[in-house]
C-alpha cells in the first residue's frame, strides 16, 4: 500500500473543519491569465492549495473553474502567470508531466476508457509506476508478471476501498453513470497522487450517491492524506467537505477563505443570487 499519511485529527461530523490547520503550500497559482482568441477565460487568478486540505473551487457556470483545473494539469497553457507545485515553478508542460509530478484528476463528463474493464481502467493508473520494458512484456512471464501482480494487488485495494469489487471485470461502457464516476475516482487514486483534482464528482447524482461519494472523498483525504481540489455546484456538499473555498466568476476571483467566511461574502452572494434581489 501507499505511504499512509494518516491525519492525526479524526474527522468527526460535528467538529467544524476549521479545526484543521494547514501550513505547507503544495501548489500555488499566481496571476494566471488564459485567453482563447479574444475570450478571456481566466484573468489574474491567484490562490494556493495547501498540503492535506480539501480545497473547493466554486462559481457559476462559465466562471472558469474547469479551465483552472485544465491549467493546473497542463492541458491549457496560460498566457501569463506562474504555477508552483511542490516548490518548483512549472514552465510550459504537457499533462503527462503533471501526472508524473503527482497530479491526478477526474472529469466533469466521465472520461473513462470505455472499451476496457474496470480493472484495466484502474490498472492504467499504475502505468507510470510500471517499469518492465517491452521485451519482458512480450515474454510476459518473469519480471513482467511479477510487476503485474504487484500492481494488481494495489489496484485491488483501491477497488475494495471504493466498493466496486463486483464490477471488476465489466467493461466500463456498460456501467451506470454513478458507478462510472466511482471507477474514475478509483483510476485517479491508483496513481497515488499528491494532488487530486475532482471536476464535479457529484454532478448528476441522487442524494444517496452523493453521500457515498462524499464519504469516499473524505476517506481518501483522511486515509491517504491526499490533497484534494474539487469543483462542485452543490453548496451543502461544498460547505461540509471543504476546508477552504475559492470563488470564481467570469474568470475573476471573487473570494477566498473558509466556507463560513465565503458564504457571508457579499460579492459571492451577489454573484450567485444576482444583484438587486
Amino acid at each position: 500500500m501507499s505511504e499512509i499519511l494518516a491525519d492525526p485529527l479524526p474527522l468527526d461530523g460535528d467538529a467544524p473543519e476549521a479545526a484543521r490547520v494547514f501550513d505547507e503550500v503544495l501548489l500555488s497559482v499566481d496571476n494566471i491569465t488564459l485567453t482563447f482568441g479574444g475570450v478571456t477565460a481566466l484573468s489574474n487568478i491567484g490562490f494556493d492549495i495547501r498540503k492535506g486540505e480539501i480545497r473547493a473551487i466554486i462559481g457559476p457556470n462559465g466562471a472558469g473553474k474547469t479551465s483552472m483545473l485544465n491549467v493546473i494539469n497542463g492541458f491549457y497553457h496560460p498566457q501569463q502567470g506562474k504555477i508552483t507545485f511542490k516548490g518548483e515553478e512549472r514552465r510550459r508542460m504537457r499533462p503527462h508531466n503533471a501526472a508524473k509530478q503527482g497530479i491526478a484528476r477526474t472529469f466533469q463528463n466521465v472520461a473513462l476508457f470505455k472499451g476496457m474493464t474496470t480493472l484495466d481502467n484502474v490498472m492504467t493508473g499504475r502505468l507510470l509506476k510500471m517499469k518492465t520494458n517491452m521485451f519482458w512484456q512480450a515474454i510476459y512471464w518473469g519480471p513482467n508478471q511479477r510487476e503485474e501482480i504487484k500492481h494488481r494487488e494495489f489496484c485491488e485495494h483501491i477497488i475494495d476501498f471504493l466498493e466496486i469489487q463486483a464490477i471488476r471485470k465489466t467493461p466500463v461502457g456498460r456501467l451506470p453513470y454513478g458507478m462510472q464516476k466511482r471507477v474514475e475516482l478509483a483510476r485517479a487514486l491508483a496513481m497515488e497522487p499528491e494532488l487530486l483534482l475532482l471536476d464535479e464528482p457529484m454532478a448528476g447524482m441522487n442524494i444517496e450517491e452523493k453521500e457515498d461519494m462524499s464519504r469516499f472523498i473524505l476517506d481518501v483525504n483522511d486515509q491517504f492524506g491526499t490533497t484534494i481540489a474539487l469543483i462542485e455546484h452543490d453548496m451543502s456538499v461544498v460547505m461540509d467537505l471543504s476546508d477552504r473555498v475559492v470563488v470564481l466568476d467570469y474568470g475573476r476571483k471573487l473570494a477566498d477563505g473558509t466556507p463560513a467566511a465565503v458564504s457571508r461574502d457579499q460579492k459571492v452572494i451577489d454573484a450567485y443570487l444576482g444583484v438587486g434581489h
Partner: protein
Amino acid sequence: MNTRLIASWLIGAPAAVVGLGLVIQLAALADPSLYFAWGYYFEVFVGGLLQGVMYSLVALGFVLIFKASSTFNFAQGSMVLFAALTMVGFIEWGLHWTIAFALTMGVMVLLAMAIERVVLRPLVNQPHITLFMATIGIFYFLDGFGQTLWGSDVKSLDIGMPRTPVIVLENVFDGGIMINQFDLVAALVGGALVLGLAVFFQKTRIGRALRAVADDHQAALSVGIPLKTIWVVVWTVAGIVALVAGVMWGGKMGVQFTLALIALKALPVLILGGLTSIPGAIVGGLIIGAGEQVAEIFLGHFIGSAIQDWFAYVLAMLVLLVRPQGLFGEKIIERV
C-alpha cells in the same frame, strides 16, 4: 472567408507559382539535362490546374457528405464509377445523352435512399470511424454491383465535348501554351457546380439543417430536423456530383474500373483543403493538380518517374504536419 484571406491568396499564389518556376530554372541551370522554358513550365502548370479541377469535382462529393454527416464517404469513387457506368448503359440502349443523364440522376436518388435506409439509419450515433468503414463496404458493393449490371469492358462516353487542343498566348511565350479544350470545358462545368452548391449550402433552409446535422445527430433530431430526409438529400447531391464527375472523367479516359480509383486521387485534395470546406476542395484540387504535374516533369527528372502515385499524398501530409485541419478546415479546439 474574409477579404484579407482572399487577398493574401490572390497575391501569394501567383508569387508561389513564379517562385517555383525560378527554383526549377535554377535547377535546370545546375543540371543541363533538365529542360526548362517558361512557356513549357506554364503549359505544364495550366494542364495541372485543369486536371486539378477534375480532382476537385470528386473531392466535392466527399466534402458534401462530410459536412452533412461527418462521415468520410469512401464510396464516393465507386459512386462516380457507378454513375458513369449507368449513364453509358442508358446511352447504349439508344437514349440521347440528356435523357440518359436525367435517368441516371433518378438512379442516384434511388441509390441515396437505399444507402440511407440500409446503411446510415441503422448506424445513427455510431462512432464516425464505424461509418467510415461502412462506406468502404459500400465502395466494394457498388464497384461489384455496377460491373455486375453493366459489365466491365472499357466503354467510351461521348457527349460531344470538344477535344481539340487550343494554343493561347503565342505572342508571350515561344510556341504558346497548349490547352486541352476538353479540360477547359470540364473546369467550367466544375466551377459552375461549385458555385451552385455554395449557394445551396449557405442560403437555403436545407443547407442550414445540413450543417446542424453534421454537428450532432441527436441534437438535430431533437429540434425537429428530419434526419432521414437530410441524409437522402445530401447523398443525392453527392450522387449528382459523382455523376458529373463521372461524365467528365469517363469522357476523358473511358468508363472503366479505374474510374473508381480516382477517389484515391481526391483524398489528398480533401485533406489538403480541409474536410469541411468547399473552397478548400477547389483550392486543394488546384494545388494538387498543378503540383503533381510540375513534380512529375521536373522533380521526376531527378528521382524517377511515376511519382504521381504518391506525390499528392506526401504533399498533403506535409501540409497536415503544419496545419492539422487542412488549409481551410475549421480549427479544432480540444476540450475536456
